[in-house]
C-alpha cells in the first residue's frame, strides 16, 4: 500500500531517501521548496487528513535542522513522516497554516524553541512557553543546560564523589 502512495507522489514531486519502514509507518525526505506543496497534495488528494505533529530535530554536526511533518490517513490507518532538511543559519520555512489551522501552534513553538522562522504564520512572534528569555533558543544542541543552571542558580555545596578504581589504587598499590 505504501508503494502506490509513493509512486503517486513521485509522479509530481521529488522524493528522496525513504527509511524507517514498518507495518504502518514510513519516513521520506523531500526538498524544502516542494515540502508544503507535497503535504497539501497528500492532504487533499491522498487522504492524509490528520496532522499528527510537526517537530524539528537538531543535527548540529551536519549543520541542519530536520523538520518532520507526521501525517496520518485515518481511513487506511497509515502514517507517513515527511522530512525536510533546512540549514541552521537563518532557518526559515514556508508556513502551512492554510492547510491545517492547528499547525500555527507548532510553528510558534518551533520559532521560540529552535529559532526556525515561519513568516506569516499567525502570532508566530509571540512567545509561547518561555517568558523573558534572553539566551539562544533552548532546544538547540549548542545550548548547554548544565552551564545555564550553574550560572544562574545557587548550587548547594558539599557534594563530592570518589571513583572506586582511583580509591583502590591509592589504598592498595599507591606506588606502582
Amino acid at each position, binding site marked *: 500500500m505504501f508503494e502506490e502512495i509513493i509512486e503517486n507522489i513521485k509522479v509530481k514531486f521529488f522524493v528522496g531517501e525513504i527509511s524507517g519502514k514498518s507495518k504502518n*509507518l514510513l519516513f521520506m525526505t523531500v526538498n524544502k521548496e516542494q515540502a508544503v506543496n507535497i503535504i497539501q497534495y497528500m492532504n487533499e488528494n491522498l487522504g492524509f487528513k490528520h496532522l499528527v505533529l510537526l517537530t524539528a*530535530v537538531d543535527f548540529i554536526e551536519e549543520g541542519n535542522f530536520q523538520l518532520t511533518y*507526521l501525517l496520518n490517513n485515518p481511513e487506511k490507518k497509515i502514517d507517513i513522516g515527511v522530512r525536510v532538511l533546512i540549514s541552521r543559519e537563518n532557518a526559515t520555512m514556508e508556513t502551512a497554516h492554510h492547510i491545517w489551522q*492547528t499547525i500555527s501552534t507548532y510553528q510558534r513553538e518551533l520559532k521560540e524553541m529552535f529559532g526556525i522562522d515561519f513568516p506569516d504564520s499567525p502570532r508566530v512572534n509571540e512567545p509561547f512557553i518561555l517568558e523573558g528569555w534572553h539566551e539562544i533558543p533552548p532546544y538547540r544542541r549548542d545550548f548547554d543546560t548544565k552551564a545555564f543552571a550553574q550560572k544562574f542558580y545557587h548550587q548547594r555545596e558539599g557534594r563530592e564523589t570518589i571513583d572506586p578504581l582511583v580509591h583502590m589504587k591509592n589504598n592498595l598499590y599507591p606506588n606502582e
Partner: protein
Amino acid sequence: MSKTEKFSFDGDRSLYPDKKSDGTLDIDLTSHKYIKLWHGPNHPGITGNMSVELTVCGDEVVEAKTHVGYLHRGFEKLMERRKYIQNFPLVCRVSVPEPDYNEFNYATCIENLAGITVPEKGLWLRTLVLEMARLQGYLMWIGGMAGALGFGTVGQWSNYCRDLVLDRFEELTGARIYHIYILQGGVRNDLPEGFSQRMDATLKEIQGFMKDIRKVLFDNYVFKKRTVGLGVIEKEWIYPYGIVGPNARAAGVSNDVRKDYPYGKYSELDFEIKTATNSDIFARAYLRYEELLTDIDLIKQILAKMPKEGEFMAKISNVMNLLIPSGETYVRSECTRGEYGYYMVSDGSGFPRRVNVRGPSYTHAVALLEKMLINANISDVAQIMVSLHTYPPEIER
C-alpha cells in the same frame, strides 16, 4: 441561559468588533467597549495551570488567547542528556495525571528501534496498568467537570474512588502517582498475592458510586440546562484542528487508537467504541462516563484472561551500555484525552537525539479552545474548557 445559534462572522455584527484585512479582530481597547479578563492560572475553573486571556464585551467573550508556560520543565531537552534507562523516571512526569502512558510510549519507542520483544505476561500487565490509568484519569476528570459547574460533592466522591485505584497502584508498582513500572522489555514486577480479589472489591465500590454520580449529574435538570447545546464542535473542524479522542468521538468520528492501531493486548479484549452525534458538552461528558464504565469492564476482562505464569520482562542487554542505531519512530496510544504520541529519533549513541511528546491537549487547548470560546458567556468558559479535558503539563512539557 444557553445559546443554540452558531457563531458566524457574517451575521449581525453591530455589537461585535470589526474584522481586519488579515482575518484578526479589530479590538480597540480604548473604546470602553471591552474588558480584558485573565481566567487563570490560579482558578478553580481551570484544569491545571494555564490561563486564558479573555476579551469580553459585556457578558460575552469576543477573543480568547491561551497562555501556557507555567509548567515548562524542559523535559525534551533533559532527555537528550541522559541514557535511555535514566529517562524513565523523567518521562512519567511529563503528563502528570496519567503517567503510565508516557512510560509505555517511551518504552515502546525503544523496543521498536532496538528490536526488543516483550513477553506475553508483560504485555498483559502493561495493558492492565494502562487501563487502570485510564480509570483514574476519568475519575479525576468527572470531579473536575462537576466542580466547574458547582457540584462539589461529586468531586469528593470521584476522588475517593480514585484514591482506591491509587491504593491498587501502590501495591502493584510501589508508588501512587509516578509508577515507573514499565521499562524497556516488559514491566518491573508481577501481581502481588490476592491482587485480583482486592481489585474486584475496588471496582465494585466504584461502580456503586458511579450509579450515584449518574443520578446527580446526568439525570439533573440544572446540569442539563447548563451543558446541552453549548460548546459544539463541528464535524468539519476535526481534521483542521487536530481533534482526537472523546472530543472527536462525540462529534461522530469514530477514532480510537485501541481499535485502529492495536497495541498491548487490546486485540484480544472485547469492547466497543462509543460515539455520539450531538457534540455538545453534555454529550462529551456522558461519553466519558460511558468510557469509564467500559474501562471497569475491561479491567475485569484483563484480570480474568491474564495467564497465571510467565515472564514479565524480556532478557535485555546491559541497560548501562545500550546503543541504539540511528532511526526514528512514532508510537501512539489512547489515553483518556485522545491520541498520545511519542516521536523518538536515535543517532547511534547511548542518548536519544530527540524525543518529542505529542499530547492531545496541544491542539485542544490552544487553537480549538480559542476558537470555541468566541461568543461564549463568561460563566460558560469554565465548563467549555473542562469538557475538552485538557491537561497543561503535556502542552509545554
